[in-house]
């Protein structure tokens, strides 16, 4: 059976010579399949949004309605979660959402899913976490630490609850990165395993005799691959949406620190 993990290996497509940078040390500049998948997602997103906005009309056509739908989805999200100031953070959330959505969806068409690489999801999570820290300290100064001082809890319990809040705050980038990575990895591994069943059971059936019984099971596996692919499209959208929602919630925590809850 084919190795279900093989699809996640990073391979060099065009090998370029290594360069040695002063701080980073030796850097491999090779163009890899991960690189190509991300560039493809970038080109598709920029092309899509350019096509949507190039010929804008008051009554949108199909393409424009699709673009405006995505835009409005995130705009409403930022507005309803962060409130008045949500508009300021909309570009960041929309960029995250489109990039993750593009890479997830392209991963279903290409042989490589960029978001199934832990390095990429960790980068997204760290950028979000870093922005939350920067905005938190810039807007509230040291008042940022009120985030870990729950006013609703009884005084005696506040240090304990605050400690738990602090640990859960530090775990946010970990869960953000692992959720996206795990969903994409798990979905594609499941797809590959069922696809592998089709081939190995089909070969068994070709042997004839009692092996013919393998053909209905192979057909069942094929149906399972189709159903799982449909589910993966839902998951691809849902994970991008969930990432955007959580980025909004984390930003809201620090933007509206004084008058929240």
């Amino acid at each position, binding site marked *: 059976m084919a190795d279900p993990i093989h699809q996640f290996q990073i391979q060099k497509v065009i090998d370029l010579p290594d360069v040695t940078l002063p701080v980073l040390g030796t850097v491999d500049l090779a163009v890899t399949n991960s690189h190509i998948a991300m560039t493809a997602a970038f080109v598709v997103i920029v092309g899509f949004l350019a096509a949507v906005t190039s010929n804008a009309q008051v009554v949108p056509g199909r393409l424009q309605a699709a673009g405006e739908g995505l835009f409005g989805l995130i705009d409403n999200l930022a507005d309803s979660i962060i409130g008045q100031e949500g508009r300021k953070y909309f570009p960041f959330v929309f960029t995250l959402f489109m990039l993750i959505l593009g890479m997830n969806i392209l991963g279903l068409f290409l042989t490589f899913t960029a978001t199934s690489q832990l390095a990429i999801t960790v980068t997204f999570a760290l950028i979000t976490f870093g922005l939350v820290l920067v905005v938190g300290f810039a807007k509230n100064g040291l008042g940022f630490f009120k985030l870990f001082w729950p006013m609703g809890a009884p005084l005696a319990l506040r240090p304990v609850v605050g400690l738990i809040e602090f640990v859960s705050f530090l775990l946010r980038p970990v*869960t953000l990165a692992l*959720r996206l990575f795990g969903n994409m990895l798990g979905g594609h591994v499941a797809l590959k395993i069922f696809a592998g069943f089709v081939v190995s059971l089909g070969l068994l059936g070709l042997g004839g005799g009692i092996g013919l019984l393998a053909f209905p099971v192979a057909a069942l596996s094929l149906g399972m691959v189709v159903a799982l692919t449909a589910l993966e499209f839902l998951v691809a959208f849902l994970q991008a949406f969930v990432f955007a929602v*959580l980025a909004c919630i984390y930003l809201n925590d620090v933007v509206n620190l004084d008058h929240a809850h």
Partner: protein
Amino acid sequence: MDAEAAKYIGAGLATLGMIGSALGVGNIFGQFLAGALRNPSAAAGQVGNLFVGAALAEALGILAFVLGILMIFG
């Protein structure tokens, strides 16, 4: 016991953590449906919360899955 065999048994045990995540996700969607059937007009506004809750519960199952993968390939 062979260390290789123990690795596979550990990976299998790690995936048992998904039971809790499955209960959580099932509970969230079941409760949402129960609430949505009682008051359908309020349901549309809670879809965002529904998916965030499902994602948070699901993340813990994914952690179990990642641990299992790490045990085999790590």
